[in-house]
Structure formats: C-alpha cells, structure tokens
C-alpha cells in the first residue's frame, strides 16, 4: 500500500505545542466572531465533520482494520486505534447504555486542552467539540462507504 510506504508505521514527530496553540487560536477566534457559545459549538462540530469525512480515508488506509461486527468493536477501534494514531492517547470507554447503543469516551490527557483554562464567561463552551464532529463525520462516511474487509 503506497500510503503506508510513504508514511511508515510511525507518524512524523513534532512538538505538540504548535498544534495545541493552533487549536486554541481557532477556538478563541471563533468565540470573538460568534460571541455566543452555542454558535461556536456548532461551528466546531461542522469543522470537525468536514475533517472527519476526509480523515476516515486516511485512517482506513493506514490502520487496515476490517469491518466491525458490532458497536462494541467500533468503540474499541475508535478508542484504541484511531485516537492513538491521531492524538497519541487512548481514551477509556465507559458508560454503556442498557441498549448498548451509546457509550462515553473519557479523554484523560487530551493534547488539545493542554494549558487551557476556560474563563467564566464561556461556561457553556464545549472546547473540544471539533473531536465530536470528526467522529460524526468519520462514522457517517463509513456507513455510506460500506467498507468491506481486505482479506
């Protein structure tokens, strides 16, 4: 697979400060532009969605995972493969609903929020909402692509 040969199995190393500060600048600029936390949350979700529909191709090419047979497997792949690959962290999966169709991902060391302290006037801001959008976009694309296993 040419994509894997170019990138190798290791992702390029870079310091995370620029990444964290870029995301922070993005969020604060959105806050200044929209002045309303709800609108900022929506914009972050939209941006994340656009990232997700593209990122899923990269993810599938690099990770070579097969089709997930149930939702629990999907949760595992998201937490242990995807988050590990792109953010270097493995969130924990908790809080499964009784029907097994909802769960929570808890991010202990989210690199997006290093050094960030939300001021009181932004109490309803969902700072990492971009990640929610990414997940939404990626999973919707999977549904549309009906990806089938390689081997």
């Amino acid at each position, binding site marked *: 697979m040419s994509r894997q040969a170019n990138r190798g199995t290791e992702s390029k190393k870079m310091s995370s400060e620029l990444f964290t500060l870029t995301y*922070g600048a993005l969020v604060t600029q959105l806050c200044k532009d929209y002045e309303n936390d709800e609108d900022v949350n929506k914009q972050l979700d939209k941006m994340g969605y656009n990232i997700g529909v593209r990122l899923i191709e990269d993810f599938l090419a690099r990770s070579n995972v097969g089709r997930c047979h149930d939702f629990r497997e999907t949760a595992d792949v998201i937490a242990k493969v995807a988050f590990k690959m792109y953010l270097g962290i493995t969130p924990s999966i908790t809080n499964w609903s009784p029907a097994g169709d909802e769960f929570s991902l808890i991010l202990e060391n989210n690199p997006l929020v290093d*050094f960030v302290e939300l*001021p009181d006037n932004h109490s309803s801001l969902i700072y990492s909402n971009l990640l929610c959008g990414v997940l939404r976009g990626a999973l919707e694309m999977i549904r549309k692509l009906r990806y089938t296993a390689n081997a």
Partner: protein
Amino acid sequence: MEWFLVTSAAVILFLQNYPLYIRSVPTENELKFHYMVHTSLDVVDEKISAMGKALVDQRELYLGLLYPTEDYKVYGYVTNSKVKFVMVVDSSNTALRDNEIRSMFRKLHNSYTDVMCNPFYNPGDRIQSRAFDGMVTSMMIQVC
C-alpha cells in the same frame, strides 16, 4: 491594585512596570509593602542595565537578593521577555537557601509560560489562572 495580604511573603510579577500578579501573605503594613515593591523594581532595572547584553543564561536570569531591609529580603528574576518576578520574604525566615529561591523562580517561570499558552489569556492581562494560583499557594505554604 487589589491584593490579599497573607503571611510574611509575597510574589509579584511585572510586565513593563505594571503588575500582572500580586499575591502576598498577611502583613501589618500594607503601605510599606507597596513602597518596597516599587523600589525593588528600580533595583531590578538597575541590575538589568548593568548586565548589558549577556542575558541569555538561566543563571543570569536570576538576579539574586536585591536588597535586604531589616524586616524583609527581596529577590528578583527577569525573563528573556522582560517579565520581572519579585519575591519578598520575611527576614526571620532564615531557612531559605539561595538554590531554593532559584527553584521557586524557575517554577514561577514555568507556570507563567503555561498561563501564556492558555488561548483565553491575553498578554498584559492580570493573571487569573487557577493553576497558577494553586502553584503560588503551594509555594507560599512551603515558605511560611
């Protein structure tokens, strides 16, 4: 400038001679403390101009004991970005050694850098970070 007086120690950060952060532990004499802080700024400026261009080394960022009065000792530290940190401790606190003061300034400098990285903090604002307050509190507890 509002400040809460706590025991006999204080930490102040200045940017271009106006305060970004003041935290002190209660003393009886507020006015004297104000005066001391401003004269210490003058001493810091004097030391910086005396040092000239050689301000790259960590050891030279630490300015040391600025001047001892009969009640207090004042220590200074300046960053490459010209932010000045001033620490005032009670003279009766003889247990504090020079390298302890240096490590406290280093911690302050690191916490200040973290505050700067907060995207919601605008450079020049008063510092209102919970993490920074927590670090200063633990330092004050150590000193007093």
